[in-house]
């Protein structure tokens, strides 16, 4: 969200480094974990810069209310929600217009990737809670949601990965943090299917020339691919296939 006001501190120093020391095309540090909740069918936790988000998937399960069911495929729901304490100025609990919009476009991003035809007449619910926000929450949320869906055993054509790019002090930059988003000139969150490079979520706000726009798009896509590598690594390392008897021998 662009406030448009001026920042007291420059967003880029004389060496071209950002306020957190990053280069223009550098991602913030990201940590991911899967299977973090007991009750959910699938879950994931993502820390991305100062963002902390947790995603849970319930399903496939019975559709309620019944009139929403589809006899040919599962119904996917997505609820993005911010905890009141996730932002500096307390956010009133409950869905606000921004959360509703984010929920809609995030669901749309997943709908063509999740193989809903496997489960006619059921519902797959995705819930993401933002516990701490530092710009790029919808990207962190969708990234966590994809992991949670995988963890739940939901069949998908790919692991959706998201990332944002933007513009600060006239320069296109990857993965804006809060101050950069507030005082920068543009923000562009995207989500892709890394296997096919198709774009599933795409927004932009700010002021960009055509060249800056396309540069940011490609930068964000590359960022999303890096995020995808970490998603795959997280999933594969959780269930490292080893030999139990060898393990035993090593410990002896």
């Amino acid at each position: 969200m662009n406030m448009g006001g001026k920042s007291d501190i420059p967003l880029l120093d004389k060496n071209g480094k950002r306020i957190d020391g990053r280069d223009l095309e550098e991602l913030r540090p990201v940590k991911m974990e899967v299977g973090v909740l007991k009750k959910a069918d699938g879950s994931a936790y993502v820390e991305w810069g100062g963002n902390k988000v947790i995603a849970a998937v319930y399903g496939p399960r019975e559709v309620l209310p019944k009139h929403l069911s589809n006899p040919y495929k599962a119904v996917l729901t997505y609820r993005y929600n911010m905890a009141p304490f996730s932002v500096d100025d307390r956010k009133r609990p409950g869905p606000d217009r921004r959360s509703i919009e984010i929920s809609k476009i995030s669901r749309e991003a997943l709908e063509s990737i999740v193989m809903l035809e496997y489960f006619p007449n059921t519902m797959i619910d995705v819930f993401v809670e933002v516990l701490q926000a530092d710009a790029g929450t919808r990207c962190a949320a969708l990234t966590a949601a994809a992991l949670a869906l995988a963890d739940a055993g939901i069949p998908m054509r790919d692991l959706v990965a998201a990332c944002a790019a933007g513009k600060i002090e006239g320069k296109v930059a990857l993965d804006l943090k809060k101050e950069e988003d507030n005082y920068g000139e543009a923000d562009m969150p995207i989500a892709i299917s890394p296997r096919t490079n198709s774009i599933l979520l795409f927004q932009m706000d700010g002021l960009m020339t055509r060249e800056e726009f396309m540069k940011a798009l490609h930068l964000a896509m590359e960022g999303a691919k890096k995020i995808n590598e970490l998603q795959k690594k997280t999933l594969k390392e959780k269930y490292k296939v080893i030999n139990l008897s060898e393990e035993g021998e090593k410990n002896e």
Partner: protein
Amino acid sequence: MNRENETLWTLKSEYVHRLASQGLRVDNRGAFDYREIYIEPNYVTRSAGSALVKLGNTTVLAGISMDVGQPFPDTPNEGVIMTGAELVPLASPTFEPGPPSEDAIELARVVDRGIRESKAIDLEKLVIEEGEKVWMVFIDLHILDYDGNLFDASTLAAITALLNTKVPKYEDDKVIRNETSMDLPIRRIPVETTFAKIGNAILLDPVLEEEMAADARLTIATTDDGYICAAQKGGSGAITAEDIETIIDKAFEKGDYLRDLINKAKG
């Protein structure tokens, strides 16, 4: 939508796809042609500003209301913009009464972004007392007839209405509505151009059948001085970076076409 309608829409959707694969459209337009556009500023005269726009059969009435209030805490020296959209039931068999649906919310927010991010309104000129009192510009979109592409029609209506808005007088802590102090200060003219992806075809200004059949849509907001100020992909399908590149070019071209129409219609 009930089951019968769904079957009907599936058949129409297949028809639209078939046409699109042959480079054709349901109403014989070219891929990047707009439907006939009618713009009438000052459609209602009671409000501070208004405009009616017809894009083919899609009809949107934008009304501007002005009031005095507190600025946002992080922008104490700027006026406030608020955009709302109502998909009222009379506009379509698919619109139901009740609180705004996610479609209404998305529409309002995307139109809002086009106007806000382009800094179309000079908000600094709307300050009465810094940090305390500023003018608040309420943009309300009333959808009267839904036949596809609410984004472009609504933005056209909104910006036309804003161009014809008169700021009331503010005296002795009161808003005096029948007297004007100034024209609403407008710096840029943003427009939105929406494209639907149907199979491999990209079509500008989707009519309702095309919107329903589309795999995805992309709305691009451009300014008169060569900037993109907002973009929104919608729908459950996917688009490619190449699609976006094609669309950006057309967005500027058709954006200028729309701005031309706005200038001609100025009240």
